[in-house]
């Protein structure tokens, strides 16, 4: 089960059992709800801002270990970033996820998201890892609009 091991790193299993920043808070500056049509998994991601800077990300939802861990990782990464920075980290994460294992997530820029690096080899699971990031991106877009 080496493959599955590489996919489910200890951090992921841990975060799926003990999620971070889960539960929505009032007063979000932007939020988005996303659904994975294959399995019906849902996630809502909230951005709480100080001007142009992310103060906190909160999220809620149901899903597999990958999507749950991914939401926690995003929520831990984002605080302190400018909105522009957050947007480019999301783009970076997407590139890694779509790379079919060729591009590892950059630890400096994506932090614990490196633990999700193995997902990119499992094309069917990329959507799971992306789901909260897509929600954050959508929240950004709607705030911008």
């Amino acid at each position, binding site marked *: *089960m080496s*493959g*599955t091991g590489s*996919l*489910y790193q200890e951090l992921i*299993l841990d975060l*799926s*059992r003990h999620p971070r920043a889960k539960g929505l808070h009032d007063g979000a500056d932007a939020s988005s709800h996303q659904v994975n049509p*294959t*399995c*019906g*998994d*849902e996630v809502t991601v909230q951005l709480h801002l100080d001007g142009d800077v992310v103060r906190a990300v909160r999220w809620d939802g*149901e*899903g*597999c*270990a*990958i999507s749950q861990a991914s939401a926690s990782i995003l929520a831990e990464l984002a605080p302190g970033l400018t909105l522009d920075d957050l947007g480019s980290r999301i783009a970076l994460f997407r590139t890694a996820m779509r790379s079919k294992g060729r591009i590892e997530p950059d630890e400096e820029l994506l932090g614990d998201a490196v633990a999700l690096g193995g997902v990119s080899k*499992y094309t069917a*699971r990329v959507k*799971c890892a992306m789901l909260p990031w897509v929600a954050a991106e959508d929240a950004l877009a709607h705030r911008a609009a």
Partner: protein
Amino acid sequence: MTLTAPAAPALSTDEVLALRRDFPLLQREGLVYLDSTATSQRPRQVLDAEVAYVEHEHAAVHRGAHTLAAEATERFEEARGTVAAFIGADDDEVVWTSGATAALNLVAGAIGNASAGRGGAEADRFRLREGDEVVVTELEHHADLVPWQELALRTGATLRWIPVDDDGALRMDEAARIVGPRTRVLAFSHVSNVLGAVNPVADLVALAREHGALTVLDACQSVPHLPFDVRTLGVDLVAFSGHKMLGPTGIGALWGRREVLNALPPFLTGGSMITTVTMERSEYLPAPQRFEAGTQPTSQAIGLAEAVRYLQGVGMERVAAHEAAIGDRLAEGLDAIDGVRLLGPRPGAPRVGLASFVVDGVHAHDVGQVLDEAGVAVRVGHHCAQPLHRRLGVTASTRASGYVYTTEDEVDRFLEATVQAVRFFGVRS
């Protein structure tokens, strides 16, 4: 499937192993394919029939006068006859479609057209108005739910549904309350693609008849798995797909009583379904051509007919007996695993060769991943039945589904891998 005692013996291990040799994909090293409810694999006989047609006989059917076209037309119509005989129907009652989804959309769409005044006086009986009701069940595949929602929205009719109990069985007490004089259409599946349970067709048909409602059967999971006879079932329309019964993708069929088909207005329009076309208006052929606009999936029809012959070679009674055995083994095995919740009928109760389940605290995607790592291909998700999953209190489940080529050994490998998955994700949150 015989709900009491099997009418034929299940397939022996040797018989299944012999059949498996016909399936190129199943030779894939280490693969345990338990996703046949989503799509089945094709035996080389089906591939060969399709290739032979394309290499030697392909031409436009029902359109050409040259020898090649005449031969192709004959082969195409023979294929229709083969499929018709398989379900106990007459040839002119079988309409080719691109699949079951297209067939169900055809029915809902034609009723929609009748409701919009198309099809003349004959089609009046199908006309839906505000106050009319279309009834489905809570366990339908989206293909047998969303088209009816759309029809209701377009016509002003009301969509109602027969609920299920905690085991996913239809609440027939409720059905008797819901189906009534306002019911114009009752659409339901023969076998649930999530639970594997066989729905009480006769009782539902009796209810519908009492109130003069049209009955539409989604037979996607019964035609491939059980002896099937349209006359015995007593429904008005039946939809199924080729790719779930050893045949090609891109082909399926709608069966309908002759008088129903010939009274329904067309749905898709275009070439080969008309008699006279002027710029102003068109006149339509009778069924089945009325519903077969445009170039048809010719080689696919020939492939599907070969799939039918293959199944007839095995014998549908024996297919059903084999599936019952596989289904039992799946259900019993899963039920015995600590932390696993089997959906649908209890072990021992009738089901076709599939079982869906959830592992407490572990998402189906994660279960499926561990199974995949062990070479076991199952389906995870809502299996196009979100309302049923919601009713059962889950968003997603894992489904293992076998077919005529599935061995007991494969079921056991699946069960072992499931135990590993439960262990791997360990603590329940």
